[in-house]
């Protein structure tokens, strides 16, 4: 069953066509990868899904609801979490504060509530903390750094904290923009393991962009290939690797399908 359906997406900035008639659908619980050369429009698709870019044409259906015109924060609150290509953590805050912000939208007590019903706000906070400690921090193996400021962490750990923060949102779909870019082999391996575990344990749908071809081919259920803002192929890793258009546009002439 499709949890996300994108129909005929058109996006342009001035005269520059960024996305042309891109349609795809993602099934619940699958890992769906978007690949393509630099400038193909991959991140633009994520920005359209997140609501940061407004497409000129086309619609986005999330859980059968048309979300094409609602604001980014409401999309996030309805279950669309995201990690960024250039880590977007809240600098100067601790790891724990960053992760807690992920569950911001799900705290019921608002401004007045927090001021007047201290008891309830306090209980919520405690429950939230328990949940974060047990099922996110332990799971991602970041217990040892939870009190540290995020700015002091290594790149790989920052990426992991960003993932933790996204998970605290209890998303239905997780959008990951280059989760292993710039990581060494060991960090990449860890991240891949986390992604697979998350998808399995939380029954989460993951849409990811990545340049690391080996990783993409290993973990994706299906792959969409973009070139110059157009979808040129879609299918399982095996199908995509053999697709003539893909070989031409993206993988060069290397028949083994590795960069």
């Amino acid at each position, binding site marked *: 069953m499709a949890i996300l359906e994108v129909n005929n997406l058109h996006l342009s900035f001035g005269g520059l066509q960024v996305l042309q008639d891109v349609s795809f659908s993602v099934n619940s619980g699958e890992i769906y990868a978007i690949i393509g050369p630099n400038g193909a429009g991959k991140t633009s698709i994520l920005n359209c899904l*997140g*609501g*940061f870019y407004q497409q000129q044409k086309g619609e986005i259906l999330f859980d059968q609801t048309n979300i094409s015109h609602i*604001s*980014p*924060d*409401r999309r*996030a*609150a309805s279950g669309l*979490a*995201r990690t*960024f290509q250039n880590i*977007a*953590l*809240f*600098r*100067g*805050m601790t790891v724990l*504060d960053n992760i*807690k*912000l*992920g569950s*911001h*939208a799900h*705290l019921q*007590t*608002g*401004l007045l509530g*927090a*001021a007047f019903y201290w008891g309830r*706000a306090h209980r919520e906070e405690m429950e939230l903390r328990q949940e974060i400690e047990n099922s996110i921090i332990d799971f991602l193996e970041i217990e040892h750094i939870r009190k540290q400021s995020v700015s002091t962490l290594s790149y790989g750990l920052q990426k992991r904290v960003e993932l933790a*923060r996204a998970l605290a*949102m209890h998303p239905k779909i997780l959008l990951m923009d280059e989760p292993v870019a710039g990581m060494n082999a060991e960090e990449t391996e860890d991240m891949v393991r986390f992604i697979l575990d998350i998808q399995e344990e939380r029954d989460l749908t993951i849409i990811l962009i990545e340049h690391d071809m080996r990783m993409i081919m290993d973990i994706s259920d299906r792959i969409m290939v973009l070139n110059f803002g157009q979808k040129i192929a879609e299918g399982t890793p095996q199908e995509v690797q053999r697709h003539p258009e893909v070989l031409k546009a993206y993988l060069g002439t290397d028949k083994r399908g590795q960069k």
Partner: protein
Amino acid sequence: MDFFLLLLTSGIAVGGIYALIALGFVLIYKATSIINFATGEFMMIGAYIFYTGSVLFGLPAIPSFLIVMAGAGLLGLLVERTILRHMLGQPTISIVMVTIGLSSILMGLAEMIWSSDYKSFPALFPRAPIVVGDLIIRSNLFWGFVVAMVTVAIFALIFKYAKVGVAMRATANDQMAAFSMGINVRSMFTLAWIFGSIAASIGGLIIGNIGGVQPNLGGIGLKIFPVVILGGLDSIGGAVLGGFIVGIVENLAGGYLDPLVGGGVKNVAPFVILVLILMVRPYGLFGRKEIERL
């Protein structure tokens, strides 16, 4: 020595009040990256609202104070919703010009509504001066300081612990990430204007209580610039420290140097310090390094 302590204490007291007004700048800048040049006029309007409540309607101090907070909040809300929201994404200089224009408009409005005559408040606080050992502090100044510090502390606590404060910090930190956390960034902007306006108006109320109110009361806002820049535009702690430094420097310079040169040093000293500190730390004592200077 007594003279020095006297200058020091009144410097600290004035500094605390400066800190509160500086907070009016910082709360708005932190979330929206806009320097509100109408902060002084927000103060002035706050003082006039208090005057209206307490003198024209004869209300007691506490209800008048609550009306000031409500009125200031409304002013912040209106300014953000009707003017600045439409300026999102415009060049900084245009937005700055808008806030400068706003300050003139508010000044003109005040003159139309309350006339340009000097108005004074009924005594807000107990009249008896505060005596600490050999030191005597004017009661207006002392209680003004107390109110200012309590207000600053409340805002600091909101920012540190309340859900809405954390969301505002997140917004200030990274708007795109804040959006992605489900934070309604636009309402955070509105809230920042409401908070900033309330902080400034309470400052105006305190200043008005010390020296009365006139439409040009907001001119003191200019004096707060050294405070804000010193502390770094986006730091609450910096605003407090900047307030104390400027208050103390101003009083010491006024006490010791003014008699020698025939006056004027008191007003210039904070700006001299400002220039000196900016030469060493261009981003203020506590500011983030990447702050864009105007």
